[in-house]
């Protein structure tokens, strides 16, 4: 991580601050210094206030990410480790799923096409697959048996469509799959059951078809992945003279997924609201269509601790239509997020990142607002296109301000006497400067004490 990246991370989100367990070791300053009125804080008190803010951010950040002195993991570290463990314990055997589903759908489709009402395939070791089909309702039922005892069964409804179907003249077709399927652990025994569900509707439109997929789920033990709703638009040009599609493309409109693994559940919806053409990047693929506006709204919940991360992300790819290969994407991003940790106040985070700035067109700007309890921290920053020059200002609702100037990826060290460079103020009084100690950025207070930011 570069020094600048670190600073931006610090500036935009204390959630991502690298935490430390230590506090500042300030030397107190006499309370006579800097007192100008009965209400104004002394310089020493102002330094303490700034130190408290940094320490508070560290403490809060420590609870979120990275390690403190005792080696205790932060919340996200712990969650990441636990998720890893959970994923290891509940992996899905999707390779076998695909193979089994293909067998069932192919066999059922063939039976419906051939008006076959029932079949039985000997699978060896007293195992068999029985399928019965009703060509009127285009419904088939299947059953995996062992020694004539049904082990896994389900229903398949296949649409009246096949390779020979004219794509220009159907109106709507539906498909459905509902049932349990076996996981073959080896050749001789059935393994764990998987549950698979799928609803599919394809509706003819003037330009092509709308594809709606819903109730998709695959479950095995404690693992579950699913798509509760997915909408895809397919647009194609049908040439009736040759009875074939001459060109076409598909657009993903939205997909809502859900997953469960151990104590973790995730849900989210991805929407693409706008597409643009970019012939340079796609070179004829999918009619050169690129998604230019996307949004994602989702959450990850630990059902055991009730910890939760949720947020809404909006992405506007400004130059999706003109961007060339290896070019720089110009993306506007906004994030509204909430982090709810067990036994801790909920933290909210609002981020925006914009490319175009009216006054300095070559700069990108960003804002961030982070709050929990009564503390609100706002950040406004501006960086050039390369992200190596600019400035960031972090203000708190209790009068602390960090003004950070960046040049050539490095922080411009402050001068407390002249007020130039990167400085820290409290209620307008300069009480510290940002300086380097080797590669480490520290706040050096005017009483001699200092502390590193990350």
């Amino acid at each position, binding site marked *: *991580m570069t020094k600048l990246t670190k600073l931006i991370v610090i500036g935009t989100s204390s959630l991502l601050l*690298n*935490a*430390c*367990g*230590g*506090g*500042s*070791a*300030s*030397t107190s300053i006499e309370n006579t210094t800097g007192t100008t009125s009965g209400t104004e804080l002394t310089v020493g008190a102002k330094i303490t206030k700034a130190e408290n803010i940094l320490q508070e951010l560290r403490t809060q950040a*420590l609870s979120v990410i*990275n*390690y*403190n*002195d005792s*080696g205790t993991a932060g919340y996200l570290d712990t969650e990441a480790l636990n998720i890893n463990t959970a994923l290891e314990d509940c992996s899905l055997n999707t390779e076998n799923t695909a193979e089994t589903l293909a067998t069932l759908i192919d066999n059922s489709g063939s039976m419906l096409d051939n008006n076959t009402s029932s079949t039985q395939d000997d699978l060896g070791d007293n195992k068999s697959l029985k399928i019965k089909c009703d060509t009127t309702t285009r419904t088939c039922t299947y059953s995996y048996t062992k020694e004539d005892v049904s082990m896994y069964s389900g229903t398949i409804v296949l649409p009246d469509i096949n390779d020979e179907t004219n794509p220009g003249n159907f109106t709507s077709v539906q498909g459905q799959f509902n049932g349990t399927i076996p996981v073959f652990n080896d050749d001789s025994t059935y393994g764990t059951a998987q549950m698979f569900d799928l609803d599919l509707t394809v509706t003819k439109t003037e330009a092509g078809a709308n594809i709606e997929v819903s109730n998709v789920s695959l479950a095995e033990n404690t693992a579950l992945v699913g798509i509760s709703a997915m909408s895809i638009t397919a647009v194609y040009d049908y040439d009736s003279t040759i009875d074939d599609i001459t060109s076409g493309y598909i657009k993903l409109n939205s997909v809502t997924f859900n997953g469960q693994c151990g104590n973790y559940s995730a849900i989210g919806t991805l929407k693409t609201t706008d597409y643009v053409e970019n012939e340079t990047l796609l070179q004829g693929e999918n009619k050169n269509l690129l998604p230019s506006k996307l949004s994602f709204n989702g959450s990850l919940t630990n059902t055991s601790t009730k910890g939760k991360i949720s947020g809404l992300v909006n992405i506007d790819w400004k130059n999706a239509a003109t961007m060339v290969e290896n070019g720089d994407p110009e993306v506007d991003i906004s994030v509204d997020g909430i982090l709810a940790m067990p036994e801790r106040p909920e933290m909210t985070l609002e981020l925006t990142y914009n490319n175009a700035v009216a006054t300095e067109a070559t700069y990108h700007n960003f804002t961030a607002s982070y709050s929990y309890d009564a503390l609100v921290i706002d950040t406004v920053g501006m960086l050039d296109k390369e992200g190596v020059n600019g400035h960031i200002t972090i203000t708190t609702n209790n009068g602390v301000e960090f003004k950070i100037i960046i040049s050539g990826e490095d922080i411009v060290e402050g001068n407390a006497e002249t007020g130039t460079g990167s400085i820290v103020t409290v209620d307008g009084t300069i009480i510290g400067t940002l300086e*380097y*100690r*080797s*590669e*480490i950025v*520290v706040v*050096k207070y005017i*009483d*001699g*004490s*200092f*502390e*590193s930011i*990350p």
Partner: protein
Amino acid sequence: MVLLGSTPLCADVLSFFNPDYSQNKSYATSFQTFIANDPVSVEALFNDWEGDFHPKDGTNLALESSRFDIGAVLKNNLYIGYTYRHDVFISASHDLTVLNKLIKNKLDLPIDKNFDLSLDIEGFEAQGIVLAKEFTFTLNEESSLSVSLSTSFLYASNMQDGTLSGVASVSSKKDYDFYATSKYFYTHNYLYDLSVDRSYGLGFTTHMTLAYQYNDFSMLFIANDIFGRIYWDNLPYSYVEMSSANKYYDKDGYVHYNPTIWGYETQENFVQELPLKLHVQASYIIVDKYAISAGMQYMYETSLPFAELSYMPDDGELYYMSYESRFGSTTLGMQYHNISVSLSADKIIAPSSVGTQVSAFLNF
């Protein structure tokens, strides 16, 4: 007086001011330097600690001791001259050297091991004026005693005086956490890059030399910096606590740190005490032209015992070989009338200690 009156110091390890070697009405100059450390070679010490690793079980040392003197011995054995001195002494715990070796070479760390991190550094760089006076007493026909007293007025431009203490706990073969505290006076901050206002010190120190001879037996006792002080004005000082909270991992999965640091930095007046240096040597001419010596040098609570064999084929000619046991360095030296030269090292390839000494005088 062959061994004492006209030879340089024979151990050739620590640098000493020894006005005894010059003659009246002469110009004299000498340059001495010695650098040594326990755990690695001198080259590796300033690089990546690769190669042979041979730390001591207890405290591990690294030292550098150099000085240059030029002056004149006036009549009545009064010496006045210019001196330049550069001394650095570092002591570190065994654990610190081991951890440093493992980390620098990304070697597997011993899981669940707690490393004791302790390090002391002292040193200074100064130049100044030396005044010395030698008194010679002939006790009888068989014995004599000479006493030299000297004082230096020093102008110091660089110094180090600090301690580091802490602990590191290994959590995996490639990961550890640490916490440490440093208390540090300096003119250049080696803990981290920090520009500070230039600071200078003024001081003084005193030396004494005793040389005694009885027939073929002789003894030499030198005490340098018996009471040496350098007074620094507005010397930078840092109190720093540091922890391993801010870690990251390289492509090999090995942990690295941008340590989290906090503390305070200030400037204070400081009195630096120069460490006492001692040289004690006893010599005996065992047969014609051959002499043996044994002795010890001492500084910073560290003793450097040595033994030596000398061969004097003719007046004004001396060849010697000495062995110092603390760093295992061997010195080969010679004196030919007004010039003496020596070289020291513990081994030829990748030495952990090296030194040289050159001195000369010219009568006027």
